[in-house]
């Protein structure tokens, strides 16, 4: 039987699974959908493309630096990290596993909106409390500790929690 051949690029994808979002350390940049492309050029240079969740996401520079450090430690000294805006990031790119890890970490994962996300005064989405699983929660603020999250409070266990808001 032939051994499974893993290309260099597959290897790099696997290595980058260990690079996490500095703000949400339970999510890797793969789970988040922030890592878009990996390409190894003939001269050995590795080109990695990442996309921001929000335009002003201050984690981008840290993530780029972490990617370079990780790959340097694994024997890839020549790495270039590029930023890609289009197609724009959406919460659809969050992996299922990532969503489960978010909830276990105490952040409610994004849920599909009931109506048009661009409708101005639509009904709020039902968000489940990540601590006691109650659906009796209320939106406190559309904006929270980071741009990608909203702040909610559970009406049952009364705990405030972050909700990773839906972006489409």
């Amino acid at each position, binding site marked *: 039987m032939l051994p499974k051949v893993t290309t260099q690029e597959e290897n790099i994808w696997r290595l980058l699974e260990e690079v996490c979002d500095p703000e949400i350390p339970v999510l890797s940049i793969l789970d988040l959908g922030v890592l878009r492309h990996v390409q190894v050029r003939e001269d050995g240079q590795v080109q990695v493309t990442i996309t921001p969740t929000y335009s*002003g996401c201050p984690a981008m520079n840290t993530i780029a630096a972490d990617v370079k450090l990780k790959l340097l430690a694994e024997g890839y000294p020549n790495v270039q990290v590029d930023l890609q*805006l289009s197609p724009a990031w959406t919460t659809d790119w969050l992996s299922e596993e990532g969503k489960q890890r978010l909830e276990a970490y105490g952040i409610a994962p994004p849920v599909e909106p009931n109506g048009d996300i661009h409708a101005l005064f639509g009904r709020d989405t039902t968000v489940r409390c990540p601590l006691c699983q109650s659906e009796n929660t209320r939106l406190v*603020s559309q904006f929270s500790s980071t741009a990608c999250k909203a*702040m909610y409070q559970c009406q049952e266990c009364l705990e405030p929690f972050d909700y990773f808001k839906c972006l489409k």
Partner: protein
Amino acid sequence: MELAHTTNTAAQSYSPELRELLFQYTLQLADTSLILGHRLSEWCGHGPILEQDLAMANIALDLLGETRSLYQYAAELEGQGRTEDDLAFLREAVEYRNPLLVEQPNGDFADTILRQFLFDGFHYLLLKQLQNCPDKRLAAIATKSFKEASYHLKWSSEWVIRLGDGTEESKHRIEKALDHLWRYSGELFQMTPVEQELHKAGFIPDYAQLKQQWDEHVAKVFAEATLEVPKNVFMQLGGKTGLHTEHLGYLLAELQYLQRAYPGLEW
């Protein structure tokens, strides 16, 4: 640290005239987001309640993110070796192209909310259209920021309603803000020669159409907020052509201080 962008443009194939127009326009959009983002960031630590302090800081961050993408592109379009930092920190007030509205001081919370509401409606509608801009880079930036702007507009619209249809005091405050700020709303839709040329070339939408949709949204929100849409107000113009109110100079003095005092300083 500036990360290189992957979305290349057809910029190399543009005529020098078109390139200059796109440079001017991109710069104007960048200045607008920068100045409003800076104003909102002045609230950081001073908001009326923690949640709204965070909201303003978040919106400021979105705007600054958009600003960086735009300045980086403007610098590439200009092709004179200037960087995003040079464009943000080393230009004089008369070179800024933001409309007067966004440089107006924060005032009280009602002033800030109303300024944001008047701008958000315009910003949201403009970005929605710019997603189809034949310039791929501007379209990509607009697509990214449009998603964020929809949250901004929702936030400021809800607050206009809450203040207008709130207590006697909150209504008085938002009416006072309206008396003062409405006169700066017309400039958003007044097309400069650069904007007219780009519209003719099919790069940007007709602002008269945006105005119509903006009017509808404002009327709807004001009706819920029990506020009257002001009529026959003389509109102040000038910011988009470099004629600013005195407030911009003070804002820039703070914004640019570090780079002026210690040129080239980095973290």
